[in-house]
């Protein structure tokens, strides 16, 4: 049985004055996914999300939500979709409750009980009558998620919801996302510029770079498919080479400058190797397990999108 596709983009593209911010993007998000949308800053994540939520018009291509084309059946397409684009901004002079009431009207009318339930869910009870002006960044971000949940959408799109939060705030949002996906059966599209963040919660993901799709699939498959290897910083180099040869470990590369080896071994074998090195009185400075996906992502992040 094929999983239901809740979001599909077909050759989606957005052209700004001089260049393409997004081009030829084909995403498929299935019902029940926590879909990671990964890309360095400026890759085109927010631009894509703005198009999906009808804030901006695609220059080319199409978006389908729950089978409805966004361009011709906007209301139906967005009826079960909601989200938070970039940072959470509200009517600062109004209370959180009033903000949610006003947004609830636009979502088709949400009753008070439901609003209170959502306020409780995101952990803002007791503060709902305070003006949003008095809220911390983390509280606004949670209120941002709350407004996305008003109409009980099936697909929730969150654009870097953890940006600028402290570790505690990040954990709260992450737990909330996991709760929404696992217990409330929401499909979630979560964008981020950090692979580690996506890895923790997503089951499928897409990587976007300079507006174009670089990879898409199951997170595990993408991570496994990418080879594993280990970076070893140890010396003297001669002695290390000898031991590696004895153990039959292939050296992918060696950096003369830093004295760093890149080794073709599985993570499970590193303990054994380290022990051998230490026994041979080699100085071991660092043993770092690497995955090529991570490297690939680091490389595009370091080179930057612009």
């Amino acid at each position, binding site marked *: 049985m094929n999983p239901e596709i809740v979001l599909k983009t077909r050759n989606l593209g957005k052209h700004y004055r001089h260049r393409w911010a997004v081009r030829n993007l084909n995403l498929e998000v299935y019902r029940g996914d926590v879909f990671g949308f990964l890309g360095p800053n400026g890759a085109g994540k927010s631009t894509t999300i703005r198009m999906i939520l009808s*804030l*901006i018009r695609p220059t080319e291509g199409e978006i389908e939500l729950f089978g409805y084309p966004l361009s011709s059946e906007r209301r139906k397409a967005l009826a079960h979709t909601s*989200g938070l684009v970039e940072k959470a901004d509200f*009517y600062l002079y109004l209370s959180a409750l009033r903000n949610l009431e006003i*947004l609830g009207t*636009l*979502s*088709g009318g949400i009753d008070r009980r439901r609003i209170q339930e959502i306020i409780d869910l995101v952990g803002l009870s007791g503060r709902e009558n305070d003006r949003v002006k008095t809220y911390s960044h983390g509280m606004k971000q949670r209120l941002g998620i709350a407004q996305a949940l008003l109409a009980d959408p099936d697909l929730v799109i969150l654009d870097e919801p953890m940006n600028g939060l402290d570790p505690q705030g990040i954990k709260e949002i992450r737990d909330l996302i996991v709760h929404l996906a696992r217990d409330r059966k929401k499909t979630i599209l979560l964008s981020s510029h950090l692979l580690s963040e996506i890895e923790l919660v997503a089951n499928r993901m897409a990587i976007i770079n300079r507006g174009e799709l670089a990879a898409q699939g199951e997170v595990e498959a993408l991570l496994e498919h990418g080879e594993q290897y280990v970076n070893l910083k140890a010396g003297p180099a001669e002695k290390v080479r000898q031991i590696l040869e004895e153990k039959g470990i292939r050296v992918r590369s060696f950096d003369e400058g830093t004295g760093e080896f890149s080794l073709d071994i599985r993570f499970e074998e590193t303990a054994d190797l380290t022990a051998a090195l230490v026994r041979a009185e080699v100085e071991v400075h660092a043993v770092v397990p690497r995955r090529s996906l991570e490297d690939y992502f680091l490389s595009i992040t370091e080179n930057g999108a612009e």
Partner: protein
Amino acid sequence: MLRLIRDEVLKTFLKKRTYLGFGIILLIVPLIEIAMNLEGSHFITAITRTLARDFFFSGSLFNGWFIAYMIMNSLWLHVPLLISFVVGDQLAGEATAGTYRLILIRPVSRAKIFFAKYAASLIYTFLFVAFLACLSIGLALFLAGRGDLLVSKGEILVLADSDVAWRFMVAYVFALWTMTTVASISFFFSSFVENSIGPIVGTMGVIIVCSVITLMPIQLFDALRPHLFTSYLDLWSRVFAEPVDWEKIRTGALYLGGYSFASVAVAWYIFVRKDILS
């Protein structure tokens, strides 16, 4: 739709800036009226001395009607400024606050949101003009009582006390109609300018430029003049004439309506297509 309008009105009237206009009127109108009342007859003797020889008046020509009439005459630039201050913020304010990103991702059409906001703008404009009317007329009559109204516009005219009340009512209806045009132009600027002063500067800029053309006695502008809305900013004052030239008023009202319609139509066209980048 009614709930959308209600929410937009609510948003407007929970904002501080909305009360600035009311506050200024509440300050400035009593100030002018009390000062005028103190100056009293000095104010008017100059004109009446010449008149007194040829006419016979009932009571003093310096009275509440006269003060209220002077207020209407003096606020024709201030009221548009205060209206654009609030109406210009209706759409642009959402852009600067970043809240377009909250309201335009929902399954309500942009057209509905647009018209709810325009409705809220008109409601504000109505309340503002009504407030100005009630305060300025009410206080003036309270301070200086009734009497015949002296109108000097080119030629001097005295309207009998009993013939004045309806003129004020009708004049304020036309003033409201004029301010609706001002509000619509502000709304137009608000649809594409993404900061809070842009729509105010835009509206006042248009009014000032057009007024200059309207008022300058330059022949080159003659052909242009009847088509500019600023030529009808003082449409209300035509009601204080004898006989009232209803034909001219009708033309003016139509021009103003046309400008309102065009502004809102263009604003709508821009708004529903706009890329939200804020």
